[in-house]
């Protein structure tokens, strides 16, 4: 018996040390960013333009560019993914040829490396459609990237709505469209929103697809036709191409991480709200 307990204690210790190691690594990265970034972040840093190739000044144009790229990509990808998910769930059987083909092509799209999206976006949006390096090109490229994940989350959200809801609605004589608009979408709403916020997180983190589509101009963008540098591209440029840019890179990384933490917390609470809305049906 003693021998058994001894044999069991080695794997127990090993599994706990793996968990502690991973936690420590995450803490190391986050503390490093917070520690080195914090001293440079100020109101002035967030609201002023960069000077001296970015070594001085702030990141206001990058924040604006990042938000514009986000708006462009989500305003295209969100409706498209919602339509696709509704079609996959409501308009076709799960095993139909069309449904399977579209799901497979989205899986393949999800696998495309982001730098390859950058190549595609450069050839298609920048060169062929003549948008050049612009926030519009970058946003549209990102929209293509976000489409698979947004569609998948929305599809799962719609499937999680209990079929009794729809049966009840059909029994009451409502059309499919009415059922969708007033029953299915409101029930799945928080989870769909969580998917959209998840998409925002992905878009904020993206770098490789944006360098050769949205460009790296540090000026404040006047419109979506201007080139604009995202926060992530700014971190890369400060760390790699500007000697003495490390502290600015860290400060920008801290701003980006804080944005991502807010996104992460929003996703968690939206998912909780979504599952309450579905499981709460028995209480009523």
């Amino acid at each position, binding site marked *: 018996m003693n021998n058994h307990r001894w044999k069991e204690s080695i794997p127990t210790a090993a599994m706990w040390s793996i968990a502690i190691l991973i936690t420590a690594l995450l803490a190391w990265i986050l503390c490093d960013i917070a520690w080195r970034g914090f001293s440079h972040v100020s109101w002035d840093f967030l609201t002023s333009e960069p000077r001296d190739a970015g070594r001085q000044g702030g990141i206001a144009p990058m924040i604006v560019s990042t938000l514009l790229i986000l708006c462009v990509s989500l305003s295209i990808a969100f409706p498209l993914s919602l339509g696709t998910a509704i079609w996959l769930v409501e308009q076709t059987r799960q095993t139909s040829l069309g449904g399977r083909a579209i799901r497979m*092509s989205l899986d*393949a799209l999800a696998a495309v490396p982001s730098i390859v999206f950058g190549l595609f976006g450069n050839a298609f949006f920048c060169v062929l459609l003549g948008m050049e390096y612009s926030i519009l090109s970058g946003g549209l490229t990102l929209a293509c990237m976000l489409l698979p994940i947004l569609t998948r989350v929305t599809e799962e959200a719609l499937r999680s709505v209990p079929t009794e809801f729809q049966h009840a609605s059909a029994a009451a004589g409502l059309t499919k469209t009415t059922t969708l608009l007033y029953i299915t979408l409101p029930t799945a709403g928080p989870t769909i929103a969580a998917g959209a916020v998840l998409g925002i997180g992905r878009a*904020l983190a993206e770098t490789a697809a944006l360098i050769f589509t949205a460009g790296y101009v540090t000026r404040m963008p006047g419109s979506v036709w201007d080139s604009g540098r995202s926060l992530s591209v700014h971190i890369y440029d400060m760390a790699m191409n500007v000697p003495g840019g490390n502290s600015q890179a860290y400060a920008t990384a801290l701003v980006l991480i804080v944005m991502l933490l807010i996104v992460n917390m929003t996703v968690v609470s939206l998912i909780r709200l979504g599952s309450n809305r579905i499981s709460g049906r028995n209480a009523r």
Partner: protein
Amino acid sequence: MILSRSSTLSRSLADRCLRWGTATAAMLSGSIVLLVIVFLWKESWPALKELGLVRFFTDASWHPLSDRFGLLPMIAATLATTLGAVLVATPLGIGSAIFTQFYAPPRLARWYRRLIELLAGIPSVVYGLWGLVVLVPIMSHLGGTGQGLLTAICVLALMILPTVSLTADVALGSVPSNWLQGAAASGLRPWTIATQVALPAARSGIGAGVMLATARAIGETMAVLMVAGNVVKMPTSLSGPVRTLTANIASEMGYASSSHRAVLFVSGLLLMVAAAGIVLLAEWLRGDRHE
């Protein structure tokens, strides 16, 4: 679904609009991957036609401005970083999933899972920055500048670890609980249950997760570009600098023109075929298990 068996009401105008609207959206979404393939092919075609696929492997070096297009060192670097990262991340990721499923108290497991999701959400450029400023000086004690194959493997392993861990977690969690209870009732220890019962039952799901992580490692660009040293060279030692295919595209796309640009698209096409092939295989493996 039940509703699609048409009653007269469901044939209303709104329903038809919904049907056509969503079908158009689905067609559009489904065709984007084809658009990507067509454009990569179209842009790579001049290089494939002029140089042929063989020269990318037989040319002695990568000097695109003087017509030498040897991709081999960079292909080797991509394979080396990917293989190294997967070898490091797989045991750690599976171990971390076993921890959440069999060792951690439920509350801790929930927090730990959220922490892994957080790790998955950190941008690759931030991993790159941390690697460059923190890890590179530490690695330089092993010789060289610190920017090299081993540093790239470490950063890359950390980046794909959440993918392995989260998918293995889901796969282990979907092992029927009466199997586990039966094993526990017959007096087996947690470690025996995990390795003899749960892991074999979850192996296709875990395998699919490892493959997804491999695809991610192949395509990863920014972090590798920042810590691998960015020198086109066959990977011969762990501390020596290398440049992967992805890092090559990111470094040279800004100024490449004509056949140089076309060759970069060829390497993009190679990356896409490799990554998409692995992911589709993984999805097929996972789908197989569900049926």
